[in-house]
């Protein structure tokens, strides 16, 4: 009790201006999103004047003039995100096992750098480099080139949660499995993977969101005629903002929030199991 009272004096909540600064930050962060969400239900064609509640722009997204275009873009986005997340998660898992369980090997820090630096490289540089690379090797730009690019830039994002979880798993589980006659594959399949699964799922969801959300790289290497949702929205906005864009954006936002919450919930239930077993 005493310690609590003492620490309260240094509580960050009691700093002058704390509430004000917090409110301003939250406002700048969320007001635009809020505006988009509210105005997606606007009955009027104007994007600034409120004309009453309506779902017409949501209907428009699915049945309007541009519905066919959006449907194709959504399908491209989702299928690419699903495949890119799956493949990059598999590759990131292999990389994490090599890095975390491989002991000391020559070029270990270099490998770690190579895996994680892409996160810090400006996206525009990666985009230009990929465009140049694809045209040098003569790859036709389109669905395939987008998929390859997404797999590649998703790997470091999938890698981080997987490696973090793997570092927390004692290697004695794998040794016990091997001791009990499991070969390498069975050790992975029956022991390591189930324990690592929450990390792999976080990696997968993160990669999925990153892929779904990507605009810059995709825009460079998509080629003509193939669109993902972000590039389609960008294309539409260039011709003036119609309220149906807001409806579409709101749908994407909801989907992302859903995925992130899912990943959070999985992470939480899992941690509660961990703390129990760590007690002994």
């Amino acid at each position, binding site marked *: 009790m005493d310690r609590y009272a003492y620490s309260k004096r240094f509580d960050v909540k009691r700093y002058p201006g704390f509430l004000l600064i917090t409110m301003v930050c939250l406002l700048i962060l969320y007001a635009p999103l809020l505006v988009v969400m509210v105005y997606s239900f606007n009955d009027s064609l104007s994007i600034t004047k409120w004309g009453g509640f309506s779902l017409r722009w949501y209907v428009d997204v699915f049945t309007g003039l541009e519905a066919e275009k959006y449907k194709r873009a959504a399908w491209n986005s989702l299928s690419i995100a699903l495949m890119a997340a799956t493949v990059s998660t598999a590759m990131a898992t292999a990389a994490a096992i090599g890095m975390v369980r491989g002991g000391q090997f020559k070029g270990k820090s270099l490998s770690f750098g190579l895996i994680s630096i892409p996160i810090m490289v400006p996206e525009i540089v990666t985009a230009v480099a990929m465009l140049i690379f694809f045209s040098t090797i003569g790859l036709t730009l389109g669905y395939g080139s987008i998929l390859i690019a997404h797999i590649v830039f998703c790997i470091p994002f999938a890698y981080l949660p997987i490696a973090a979880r793997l570092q927390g798993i*004692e290697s*004695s*589980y794998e*040794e*016990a*499995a*091997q*001791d*009990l*006659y*499991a*070969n390498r594959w*069975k050790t992975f399949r*029956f*022991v390591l993977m*189930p*324990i690592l699964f929450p990390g792999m799922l976080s990696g997968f969801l993160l990669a999925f969101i990153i892929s779904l959300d990507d605009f810059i790289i995709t825009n460079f290497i998509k080629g003509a005629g193939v669109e993902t949702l972000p590039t389609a929205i960008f294309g539409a906005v260039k011709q003036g903002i119609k309220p149906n864009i807001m409806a579409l954006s709101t749908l994407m936002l909801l989907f992302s929030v859903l995925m992130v919450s899912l990943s959070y919930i999985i992470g939480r239930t899992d941690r509660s*199991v961990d703390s*129990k*077993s760590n007690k*002994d």
Partner: protein
Amino acid sequence: MDEINTAISIRDVKKRFGDFIAISGMSFNIRDNEFFTLLGPSGCGKTTLLRMIAGFENTSAGEIHLYGQPLENLTPNERPVNTVFQSYALFPHMNVAKNIGFGLHMLGWSKAEIQERVEQMIKTVELHEFAHRKPAQLSGGQQQRVALARAMAPKPKVLLLDEPLSALDLKLRQQMRAELKALQKTTGITFIFVTHDQEEALTMSDRIAVMSAGEVQQIGTPTEVYEQPANRFVAEFIGKTNLIEATVTEVQNDSVVCKLVTGQTINAVTAQNHSEDSSGVSPSANIIAGAQGHISLRPEQLSITEVSSSSSGLQGTLGEAMYLGTDTQFDVNLSDNVCLTVRRQNSVENSNLPEFGEVVELSVAQGAARFLAG
């Protein structure tokens, strides 16, 4: 060397981690159906040796044979030995029954066979009510039983146990000692048991290898290592002992006459290792007059008597007495800086004690004084 009776043969095994030498060369045999204990202080290389037998570490030099078969090229999953890990390493996502059946599943047993064996093992370790619980929902003692059942289910030829009792409280530890020992006897599986607890080693083992700093100091039955320690390390590590600096003045058949630093002379036997496959032990038979060393006297083999004019025994002044329930422990000062500990059982007959500060004589039980070179 009898190959049939030898479960595990360690031959000139060395282990280096970089520049660090963890095992500096050891050779010995572990017999079939034996409860063999590796005893030594922390960091002496017990786990390392166990991991080399299991296959998690390779040997830097030397060979390990299992029933005559070299293990060198076998991966851990190909070796018919199982391990009870110090941390148990129970699979957290599987329930007790699944954990116990894992090895059988990997060996390709049929569902029915697995179920039967698992039930049998659950019965053996008395975990009926817990078959469907996850490891996190078990107490430390119950987890320990699951680990034991899991390792024994595939009927390994040799079971390796790395300090399996160290996480348990004293009561449970003592109970598990008896259970483990009984389990070893009924199953006939060779146990290699690692511990740094000498009491555990003495009570459970058929034979003990006392290790220190990557070397085997002595191998013998509990009685042998306690009563006939091969060197100073063993004498001090197992049980309590009094060590007094001494010089050999005369060598007889199988004993020596020594002069203690305090001036008295004493008859002592020399350390002889009786086990046939002893190793790393300096032969002590060739002790010559003038050799320096220590005399080891166990506290319970000394008794306090009144000074008699005829005797030439050890004399000293009686110091503090400490009541320990079954025993009383006395300090007897031979000189200003040599003090011996004497233990005496508390019984009705020997209740008349000399007073503090009185000069007393210490009589040494026949053959109890041992000369240890070095």
